[in-house]
């Protein structure tokens, strides 16, 4: 509706404005003072500003904001909708971009010319903006724009090491398959609109009561979303792209993209009841089983971690299954999903970040043979990777354990005890490849140092402590990310 922006509009737009402002500032300054190295500073300023402007949303838990009765916050005539819990996931996306930036300072930033740096830093701001829109989308337009805004920068960032074949291949593969998935997404939206006349999440409910046209549209929409979330059989790209992309970008994809896509799926999930939980549970189990099986014989640690991400996405679908089985469990399922995303996100950031540092010591290789015994030689990076792996495996005392616990608790509460047991068994199965990483890291006969000696990267080493500490802190004190 035309008219001045309401407080809630501002609330949800503010982080986007910060990020967009950062992009514009970098591009303009770049045009006039191409020699100055201002990009990183401006980008971090924009990310900080965006995070700061997200606080009011997180704080709004429980008390209605000025002019906004109750929660969640709806903005722009209902095109965006976010609850305080989503704000925590939003902070995770911004943090992921910031960490990717810090990890790039001494590596990607030094690759080539100034143009290159401009691309890196502007895209590192655009991607989280897309994530924020996606996770709050409650209209076809915002969902589509959000997904594309987060994907396009990642296609480019994946291929940023353009002299390396793997990086280019990863970018192009990701791009082609992503564009293919967008086709499904948009066509699904068109059919849903044709069948129900709506473009908000209500269309999903209406479609399930409506005719074949709308139901077909729903199928295509989910195909598009499940690609982003990497659910079997839409997950095959993940291992290749994560492996080929520069590791800081992989970290951003693992933590941010997954979180945004998962919350979008939760927004657009069918209401409890008509569909039943079977389909989601089946998808979840299939994804877990496939990811675990594929990860078992991998040689490349990045691929193992990528497949671990696929397994984690699969586990998330159990929450949707719980939502289907138990009407009225929306709020607690959402809390569980938010916490799960944050727990997985910080673990993945710590894991990929530490792996990046170790990789540099191993001459840019992430193969098990190249990383053998590096955990002993580099105790901090190795220790953080080991801790993150324990969290990904779900060892009690870490955030990852509680994330899994909350999801399975929802499943048990919804009455799906059998499914929960199956899921737990499948999760235990994954210990096999997590343990393998630990064994590789702390093997006795260390690999000889390969390649040129790596530069000392103090900013990255310091920044890595943040997700590492969060892994432990959220493991013993889940409340800050779970109650909201």
């Amino acid at each position, binding site marked *: 509706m035309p008219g001045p922006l309401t407080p809630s509009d501002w609330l949800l737009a503010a982080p986007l404005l910060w990020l967009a402002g950062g992009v514009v500032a970098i591009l303009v300054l770049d045009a006039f003072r191409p020699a100055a190295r201002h990009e990183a500073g401006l980008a971090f300023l924009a990310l900080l500003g965006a995070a700061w402007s997200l606080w009011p949303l997180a704080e709004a838990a429980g008390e209605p904001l000025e002019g906004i009765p109750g929660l969640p916050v709806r903005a722009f005539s209902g095109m965006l909708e976010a609850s305080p819990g989503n704000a925590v996931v939003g902070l995770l996306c911004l943090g992921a971009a910031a960490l990717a930036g810090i990890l790039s300072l001494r590596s990607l930033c030094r690759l080539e010319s100034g143009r290159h740096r401009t691309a890196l830093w502007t895209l590192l701001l655009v991607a989280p903006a897309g994530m924020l829109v996606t996770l709050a989308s409650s209209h076809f337009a915002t969902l589509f*724009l959000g997904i594309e805004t987060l994907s396009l920068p990642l296609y480019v960032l994946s291929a940023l090491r353009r002299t390396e074949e793997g990086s280019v*291949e990863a970018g*192009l593969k990701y791009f*082609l398959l992503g564009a293919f998935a*967008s086709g499904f997404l948009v066509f699904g*939206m068109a059919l849903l609109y044709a069948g129900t006349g709506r473009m908000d999440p209500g269309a999903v409910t209406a479609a399930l009561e409506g005719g074949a046209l709308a139901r077909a549209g729903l199928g295509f929409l989910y195909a598009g979303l499940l690609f982003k979330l990497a659910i079997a059989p839409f997950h095959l790209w993940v291992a290749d792209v994560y492996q080929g992309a520069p590791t800081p970008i992989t970290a951003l994809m693992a933590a941010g993209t997954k979180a945004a896509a998962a919350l979008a799926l939760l927004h657009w999930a069918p209401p409890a009841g008509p569909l039943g939980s079977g389909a989601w549970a089946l998808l979840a189990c299939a994804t877990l089983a496939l990811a675990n099986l594929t990860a078992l014989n991998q040689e490349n640690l990045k691929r193992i971690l990528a497949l671990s991400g696929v397994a984690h996405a699969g586990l998330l679908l159990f929450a949707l299954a719980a939502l289907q089985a138990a009407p009225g469990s929306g709020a607690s399922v959402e809390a569980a999903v938010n916490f799960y995303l944050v727990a997985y996100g910080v673990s993945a950031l710590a894991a990929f970040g530490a792996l990046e540092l170790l990789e540099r010591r191993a001459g840019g290789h992430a193969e098990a043979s190249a990383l053998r015994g590096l955990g002993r030689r580099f105790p901090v990076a190795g220790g953080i990777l080991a801790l993150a792996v324990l969290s990904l495996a779900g060892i009690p005392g870490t955030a990852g354990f509680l994330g899994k616990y909350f999801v399975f608790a929802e499943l048990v509460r919804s009455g799906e005890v059998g499914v929960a047991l199956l899921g737990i068994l499948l999760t235990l199965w994954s210990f096999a490849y997590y343990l393998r990483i630990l064994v590789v890291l702390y093997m006795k006969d260390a690999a000889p140092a390969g390649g040129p000696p790596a530069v000392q990267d103090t900013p990255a080493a310091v920044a890595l402590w943040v997700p590492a500490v969060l892994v432990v802190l959220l493991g013993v004190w889940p409340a800050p990310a779970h109650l909201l």
Partner: protein
Amino acid sequence: MIPTAHVHILAALLFGLGILGFLRQRNAIMLLMSVELMLNSANLSFLAAAREQGNVDGAMMPLFVLVVAAAEAAVGLALIIILFRKRVSLDVDLLRSLRD
């Protein structure tokens, strides 16, 4: 007046063609064009449905889709150029260095 259903059927055919093209072609530019076909079939459906529903919501979506498609083409062509420089070929079947 063409019935809306006919337009949807046309859109579905175009969409199917796009999918088939994506699956059958090996040339990266042809893949990009197939995706464009899929996106535009959706636009057709949107516009037909908007005319039937009598609201502008549906008519607005194709604008967004076109803008995004343009951006996608820009990114895609840039990546394809890098590929061509390295391989002197546009065959996506050759992209197999990352695999199990």
